[in-house]
């Protein structure tokens, strides 16, 4: 057994208890410290208790499997975005396309006060001149995203993936819609934590090496190593997501100069009656205006309650369960399926890591059976 393996690892199946303890009780999907802290807290001053709570909230180590799932699914969506962009590279980024560099510069100068430093300089696409260079850079970028999605060399590929995606967003922000800022947010946070510590090729390779070093039998499980870095990143995602819901709700109820369609209960009608975007035709609801009212107020209510109730241990599963049909329906009604998908992926940050670990083990055992 190598010294490295001895120092780093978790060993046998019984150590799985560690995992159970780490993910058994949860605060917003993440573990809280045990009774010792609680007992200690009673002797502390108010400020010290607050400090304890703060440290517990941000720095208690947790299973990185949640981060792994978020990385995997975010990578899939990013790959999809880039794949669909491959058809239109010339139109959007080519020198003869709709948005040549000069047009983007003009747009920045007119629309965004960049203080004389156009964001275009942060995009490597601004330095590519020919369609061939563009295509080569695009497919290399896709390769890097694929590695990130699979979780290979994750520490490096996560940063490179963020740079790649940001380059496209900065080069042509006028073609970005709702999904891009959310993707940027998720990918930035994923760079900060151990996104490749689970559900990744990196983790698989590490585990294989450890098994060989420790001479473990296949049925012997390795204990999970909780990471405080995973907690910090998940908390960042959780808070940012809640901020999104709060702002989206406030924006809807703040209304417009022509009257507020959300408070009047008719907003969902104007969403589903758009002629070109919906994937499913819901205009038959015109015969049932009550249902349109209900749908509109359900969206409003959900956006208002999610950031409040998702922190409650009992109500969290309910809010997460409601979010699934809500975003699926919104995705179908608005045609913004990738946006709906990343919102659901962001919601994974609140899911119990033990449950996600179970899903991952289930996937692995099915894969192993299929392989056998």
């Amino acid at each position, binding site marked *: 057994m190598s010294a490295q393996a001895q120092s780093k690892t978790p060993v046998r199946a019984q150590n799985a208890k560690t995992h159970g303890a780490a993910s058994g009780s949860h605060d917003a999907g993440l573990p809280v410290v045990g009774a010792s802290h609680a007992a200690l807290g009673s002797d502390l001053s108010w400020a010290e208790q607050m400090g304890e709570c703060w440290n517990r909230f941000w720095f208690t180590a947790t299973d990185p499997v949640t981060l792994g799932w978020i990385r995997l699914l975010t990578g899939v969506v990013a790959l999809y975005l880039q794949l669909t*962009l491959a058809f239109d590279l010339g139109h959007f980024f080519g020198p003869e396309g709709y948005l040549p560099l000069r047009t983007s510069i*003009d747009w920045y100068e007119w629309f965004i006060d960049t203080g004389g430093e156009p964001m275009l300089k942060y995009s490597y696409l601004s330095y590519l001149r020919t369609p061939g260079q563009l295509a080569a850079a695009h497919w290399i970028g896709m390769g890097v995203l694929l590695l990130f999605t699979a979780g290979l060399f994750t520490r490096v590929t996560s940063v490179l993936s963020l740079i790649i995606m940001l380059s496209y967003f900065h080069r042509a922000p006028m073609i970005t819609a709702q999904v891009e800022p959310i993707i940027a947010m998720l990918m930035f946070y994923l760079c900060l934590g151990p996104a490749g510590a689970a559900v990744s090729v990196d983790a698989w390779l590490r585990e294989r090496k450890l098994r060989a070093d420790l001479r473990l039998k296949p049925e012997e499980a390795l204990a999970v190593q909780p990471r405080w870095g995973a907690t910090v990143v998940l908390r960042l995602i959780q808070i940012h997501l809640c901020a999104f819901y709060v702002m989206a709700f406030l924006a809807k109820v703040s209304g417009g100069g022509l009257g507020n369609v959300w408070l009047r209960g008719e907003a969902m009608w104007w969403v589903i009656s758009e002629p070109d975007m919906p994937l499913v035709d819901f205009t038959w609801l015109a015969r049932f205006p009550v249902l349109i009212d209900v749908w509109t107020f359900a969206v409003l209510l959900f956006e208002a309650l999610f950031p409040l109730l998702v922190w409650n241990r009992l109500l969290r599963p309910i809010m997460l369960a409601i979010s699934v049909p809500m975003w699926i329906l919104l995705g179908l009604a608005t045609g913004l399926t990738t946006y709906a998908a990343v919102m659901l992926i962001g919601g994974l940050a609140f899911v119990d890591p033990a449950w996600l670990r179970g899903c991952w083990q289930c996937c692995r055992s099915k894969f192993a059976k299929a392989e056998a």
Partner: protein
Amino acid sequence: MPSQNVRTAINFLLFVHFFSLGALLVLNHSSSELAQKLRRIPGYYLQVLFMDIDFDSGQPFRHRRYPLPEDAMAERDNPRDLPRGRRGRYHLTQGEVYDCAFFVEVEIPDPIYIQQRGGNYDGERRVVTVPELDINPKQRYLRYHTLAWEAARLNGQEDVDPILLGGIGGGVLREHNVPRNIPCRVRVWRLLSRSPEQVLHPDESVRDKWNKRAPQPDIGLEGTIFLDRNGNVQFSRSLPVNEVAPPPGSVAPTPDGAETPETPAAAPGV
């Protein structure tokens, strides 16, 4: 748990990050000078990360707000009614005039016709539309849709250069090898959403969701575009000679001789 020093460093970074985000979310549309300074200081950092979009308006940090005619009217009628977040992406809709589909149309000389004429252009035209409705998957369509929407929004003002309209028009001219110095008409039209009454209307033409209800003179986005001898795009808000947009509410003859209004009334709420 990490050491005290590490925790302190992380706490400081968390404070900076959340302060930046908070300033953006809360102060992006504030007219207070102090608020603007507060949000500008951390602005660059969020800008680089593309996290400078506030989820209220969907507008990026440090954007310049060009009021559109509708805004101006709302401000005049009730200044308090001019909200921070109109036309925001994350509203999904506010049932407003810009919450609908926009299309950029460029009338170009038919390339086959030009070829037959030995390169001479004689007025025969075809229309190229951005976005084309048959683009799949939807994510691709959405990008063109967003671009056309942005072009419409940015060009709603006379004093704003038609940057995107010129970019799209120039791209279409170059893509179809339109000869230099041939003026082509470019315009933006919108496809209004239908009201429940229109969807349930017995008349099929009223129910038709592809009924253009265009042109849309209240947006006033049309003009002439051509490539000059250097290949640069030139845009003018005047129409090509002998082509003048019909005034609002005018009538145009249909193929069967009947007259139909060019611009039906906007749907309620839009």
